C-alpha cells in the first residue's frame, strides 16, 4: 500500500499502516475510539506534505505518533528505512528528535512564559550537544533568530514570550525546532491561531526552509486553501482514514473522493463567487467509537453503494502521483 508517491526519491520518514485506538469510558468499558486506521504517509526531503481534515478526523493523532508522543496501536514508523518504534531507549529517542522536530498550534502555550527567547533556543542546543561553549551558543542563537527574521537578534533574544506578538512567538518556535538541524519538521496547525495578515509570512518562511535547507515538512491543517498554497502534496483525512492523496494542485482542480469534493464545495471562497455547484449532503461525521467495517463516509455520501457499508475500499492508484480509497474508481 502506498501513500503520496514519489517513485524517484526515497522517503525520509514513512508511516506504514499506522493505527491508533484509544481506550475510553473507564476500566470496565470495552469502548475504543478508533482515531486512526491504517494510515500511510511518506515525507520527502524538500517537500511539504499536507494532511487535511476536520477536527476529530485523526490528523493530530498521526502527527503525534510520528513525533513519538503517542505509541501507535499498530503499524510502523520508518526513518530512512529503519523502524524507529522498536528502540524506546532515551538515547534512541534523543537521536530521533534531533532529526524530527515538531511545531505546535498554539504559540501562546508552547513557550515557557517565565523564560526569555534565549533560554528556549539554548536548551535544544545544549541537550543535543550542538554548542560546546558560551561563544558558540551565542553565535548559533544569532544565526537562528536571523533565519526566522527576528532582528535585531540581541533584542529578541532577551525578550519574554509575552513581549512578542503571535507571529513572532511562532517564529521563535520555528527557530527552536531548527536549533537541532532537523531533517523533518512536523507542523501541527502552525498558523491557525495567527492573524490572517501574518499567516502568510510564517508559511513563506517555512517554504524558504524547505527550499534552502531541504527539510521535509508534514503540514497538518483544517484549511485546504492553505494546503494548496504551501504544500506540494496533500492527503485528505476523514474519520480516522486517509481517503485520498495527490499533488495539491491536482487535488484542488480535480478531487476524486466524494468527501474531498464535498469539502471543496463547502470551503468559502469569494474568488469563486456563487458559481459553485452545491452538493446536498446531510448528517455529520460519525462517532469514532461506533465505526463499522465500511467506509466512514458511507452515511453521508451521495454516491453510496451497498458494498461501501460492508468493507472499507482499498487504495486505488490513479497515476504515479495520486491515489484514492473509493469503490467508484476501482
Amino acid at each position, binding site marked *: 500500500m502506498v501513500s503520496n508517491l514519489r517513485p524517484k526519491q526515497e522517503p525520509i520518514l514513512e508511516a506504514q499502516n499506522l493505527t491508533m485506538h484509544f481506550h475510553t469510558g473507564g476500566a470496565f468499558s470495552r469502548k475504543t475510539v478508533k482515531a486512526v486506521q491504517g494510515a500511510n504517509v511518506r515525507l520527502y526531503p524538500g517537500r511539504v506534505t499536507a494532511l487535511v481534515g*476536520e*477536527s476529530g478526523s485523526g490528523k493530530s493523532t498521526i502527527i503525534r505518533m510520528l513525533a513519538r508522543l503517542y505509541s501507535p496501536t499498530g503499524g510502523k514508523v520508518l526513518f530512512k528505512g529503519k523502524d524507529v518504534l522498536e528502540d524506546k531507549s532515551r538515547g534512541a529517542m534523543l537521536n530521533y528528535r534531533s532529526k524530527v522536530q515538531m511545531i505546535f498550534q498554539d504559540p501562546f502555550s508552547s513557550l515557557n512564559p517565565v523564560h526569555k527567547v534565549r533560554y528556549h533556543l539554548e536548551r535544544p542546543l545544549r541537550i543535543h550537544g550542538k554548542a560546546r561553549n558560551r561563544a558558540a551558543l551565542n553565535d548559533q542563537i544569532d544565526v537562528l533568530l536571523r533565519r526566522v527574521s527576528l532582528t535585531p537578534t540581541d533584542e529578541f533574544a532577551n525578550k519574554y514570550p509575552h513581549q512578542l*506578538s*503571535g*507571529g*513572532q512567538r511562532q517564529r521563535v518556535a520555528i527557530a527552536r525546532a531548527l536549533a537541532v538541524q532537523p531533517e523533518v519538521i512536523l507542523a501541527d496547525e502552525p498558523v491557525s491561531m495567527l*492573524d*490572517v*495578515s*501574518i*499567516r*502568510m*509570512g510564517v508559511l*513563506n518562511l517555512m517554504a524558504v526552509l524547505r527550499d534552502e535547507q531541504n527539510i521535509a515538512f508534514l503540514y497538518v491543517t*483544517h484549511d*485546504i*486553501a*492553505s494546503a*494548496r*498554497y504551501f504544500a506540494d502534496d496533500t492527503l485528505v483525512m476523514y474519520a480516522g482514514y486517509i481517503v485520498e492523496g495527490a499533488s495539491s*494542485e491536482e487535488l*484542488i482542480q480535480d478531487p476524486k473522493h466524494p468527501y474531498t469534493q*464535498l*469539502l*471543496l*464545495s*463547502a*470551503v*468559502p*471562497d*469569494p*474568488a*469563486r463567487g456563487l458559481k459553485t455547484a452545491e452538493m446536498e*449532503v446531510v448528517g*455529520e*461525521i460519525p462517532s469514532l467509537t461506533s465505526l463499522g467495517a465500511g467506509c466512514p463516509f458511507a452515511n453521508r455520501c451521495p454516491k453510496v453503494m451497498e458494498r461501501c457499508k460492508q468493507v472499507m475500499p482499498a487504495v486505488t492508484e490513479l497515476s504515479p502521483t495520486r491515489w484514492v480509497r473509493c469503490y467508484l474508481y476501482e
Partner: protein
Amino acid sequence: MLSVMPKPEVKRAVNPDEPLLSVQDLEVEYHTRRGKVRAVDHVSFDIYPNEVFGLAGESGCGKSTIAHAVTRILHPPAYIVGGKIMMQGIDILQMNDDNLRGFRWEHMSIVFQSAMNALNPVITVGAQIMDAIQAHTDMSKKDARARAKELLNTVGIDPERVDSYPHQLSGGMRQRAVIAIALALNPELIIMDEPTTALDVVVQKQIMKEIRQLKDQFGFSILFITHDLSLLVEFSDRIGIMYAGELVEVAPSRQIFTNPQHPYTYKLMNSFPTVSGPRQKLVGIPGSPPDLITPPTGCRFHPRCDVAIAGRCQEVMPRLAKVGDRHYAACHLVDEKVIHG
C-alpha cells in the same frame, strides 16, 4: 429542511431605506493598569433592514467590542465613553435596565462565539427556548412548548428532540438550537459573533445557508462578525473593515473583495489563499497590529503601509470619505484621487 411557518406579524412598518441600526461616533475604552486603551475610536456605520453587515479585522481591532457595545453587555474595565447607538429612533445607550430587558431578545438577539457552550448543560433544549419565550410574553407553558418545537423544526432539528439535553446533540445541532433561541421572539436584528467557528466547514456551509434562508423568510438584519474573511465576503451584503479600533473602509462585499480602496483592505484581501483561481505568491502584511495604549500618530496603519505619504500619514488622521456608490474609505491616498482624479 425548513418548514413553512406562519409569517410573523410585522411589528411596525419598516422603511427599507432607513437604517435599522445606526452606530454614531462610538468610542469604547478599556481601563487597564498600563493605561487607557481606546478599543473603538469614533466608529459610525448603519445596518439596513434585511441586510447582513459584516465586520472584519484582526484580533484586537475592536470588532467584538462593538458587538458587545451594541447589545450593552460590555463590563468594566470596558467603558462606552462617547457616541450613540440608535435603533428605531431610540438610543440603546440611554436605556435603563427595564427597557433593556424588554428590548433584548424581542428586538435584538445574540448568537455568541462558541455558542455550543452557551447552552445550559443541565436543562433540556426545549426548556431553554421556552425560557426565552415565557420571560417576554404571556404565552402558556403548553403554547411555549409548541412554539419551541416549531422553532427547532425551523432550524432543521427534529422537533422530537425538544426534551434532549445539550450533550445529546451534535455540535452542529447545538449551534442550530442556539439560533432557534435567537429567533424565538422574531427580533429585527441578530448579532452573530463567530457563529460557526467551532464547526467543520461542511456543517458551517449548511448552517450559513439556512441562516440566509431564515433571514429572507423573517426579514431580520444581521451584524456578522468573523475572522474568516472568505466566509465574511461570501455571506455579507456590506462589509466594514476595522484596523486598530477604527473603521477604515465600508463597502458592498463584492466591492471590498474586487476593488478595495484602503491599502490595509487591499493587503488583507491578498493575505489568504483560495481554492479557485490561479495559485499566486501571497505576502501577508509585514509587522503586527499596534499596541493601542500608544497607538501610532496620524493614520494608525502608516507604520505597516508601503504607500504612506511622507509627512502626511504620520501626522493627520484620515477620515472616511465617499469613494464610490455606498463605498467609503479613510485614506489620504483616496482623498488625493478624489481631489485630483
